[in-house]
């Protein structure tokens, strides 16, 4: 048994089909539990009041948005090295979810920024680099849609994803250099000093786990439908429709 066995579309469909219900239910439970814990059973912040609760949507969506790109990068490299179609399709499947999470992160950030900083938008490095991430997602998705031959599309988007990662990281540090920020430091990091307070921390972790599970469920679902779409296409070609 090796991990690569599941690169076979049939095996992948079987495994993902049996996993999908569990992952989805688990995602729903953790998100509902985490959000209701966060929304109703934690105190308001002494400075920010109830707006601090935007944190429970803002941080997880931003986290998933960045890591979705990272997952696409890994899947693209696997596609280029080992030519497993499932990998290419998983990268394709993750992109719309990533861009949706980016938009959620930006919008919740704006809603939070308005009462706290007095502005919907500020050209702060973190905000700016998220906007840039959005542009990279956009280019990636548009390139997938523009190329007709599926293998060529997979190849081109994989190279775009790899080179794009280099330039996205460059842009991240360029924006750091370009403007000093309003945004607070990382809400979650190894360094305990800069953490959010524990009361907010535990529900946040639960919601984050929920968002990650949601991401996994959606990627599995999208990848499955991509595989099936391709099969349907092959059947249509074969039967001459």
């Amino acid at each position: 048994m090796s991990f690569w066995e599941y690169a076979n579309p049939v095996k992948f469909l079987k495994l993902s089909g049996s996993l999908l219900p569990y992952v989805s239910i688990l995602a729903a439970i953790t998100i509902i539990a985490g959000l209701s814990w966060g929304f109703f059973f934690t105190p308001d912040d002494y400075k920010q009041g109830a707006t601090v609760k935007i944190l429970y949507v803002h941080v997880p969506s931003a986290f998933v948005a960045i890591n979705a790109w990272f997952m696409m990068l890994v899947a693209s490299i696997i596609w280029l090295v080992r030519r497993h179609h499932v990998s290419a399709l998983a990268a394709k499947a993750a992109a719309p979810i990533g861009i949706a999470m980016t938009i959620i992160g930006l919008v919740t950030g704006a809603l939070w920024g308005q009462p706290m900083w007095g502005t919907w938008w500020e050209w702060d490095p973190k905000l700016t680099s998220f906007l840039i991430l959005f542009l990279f997602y956009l280019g990636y998705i548009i390139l997938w849609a523009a190329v007709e031959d599926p293998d060529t599309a997979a190849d081109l988007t994989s190279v775009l994803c790899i080179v794009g990662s280099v330039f996205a990281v460059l842009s991240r540090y360029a924006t750091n250099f370009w403007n000093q920020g309003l945004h607070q430091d990382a809400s979650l990091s190894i360094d305990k000093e800069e953490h959010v307070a524990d009361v907010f921390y535990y529900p946040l972790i639960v919601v984050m786990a929920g968002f990650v599970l949601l991401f996994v469920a959606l990627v599995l679902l999208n990848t499955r439908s991509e595989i099936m779409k391709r099969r349907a296409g092959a059947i249509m070609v074969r039967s001459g429709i």
Partner: protein
Amino acid sequence: MLFGQGGGFGLSLAFFFILVVFFPFAIGPNLDLLSKVAPGTLWVGALLACLLSLERIFALDFEDGTLDLLVTSPIPLEGVVISKAIVHWLTTGLPLVLLTPFLGVLLGLQNSNVIFLIISLILGTPALSIIGAFGAALTAGMKRGGLLLSILVLPFYIPTLIFGAEAARRGIEGFETQTSILLLLGVSLLSWAILPFAAASVLRINLR
């Protein structure tokens, strides 16, 4: 050869000129204000003018089959990409840089300050050319490649634009410029180091 092919060279230069001349019409004839936005205007103008001529890097050669011959020739495809990008810079980037002092006058820049813009453009426009060559390689052979090319390439231009315009702005406002110039140079060199390989691999995919 590139000069002869239907005036793509003159066009982007003319576009740069017109774009920069139109800014005062939009912002108003206040030279103080114009000189403040001059670095940004010239940088965005250069970037858009560069974008305009990118499609021609590979599209024509792709259509008439020259690219197939170049792939089978003994020169590595990476070398072809590099020479194409150099030619693109010589016919687009360099003329833009040469035109900058005159446009600087129109935007109310002091003569001594124009030098910062020239330095930042000389160091930055090569990056625009090689990044553009990568984008052109990605979209070679697509029917509506032009618009797609712009959408794909523009995010890649962000670091160059930030460091380039920052260097010019800092120079004009009298701050130290060394850091931003070195970073700009770094972005240019990094682009020239990795993108020829990426562009060549993408071309091979497109020619399959």
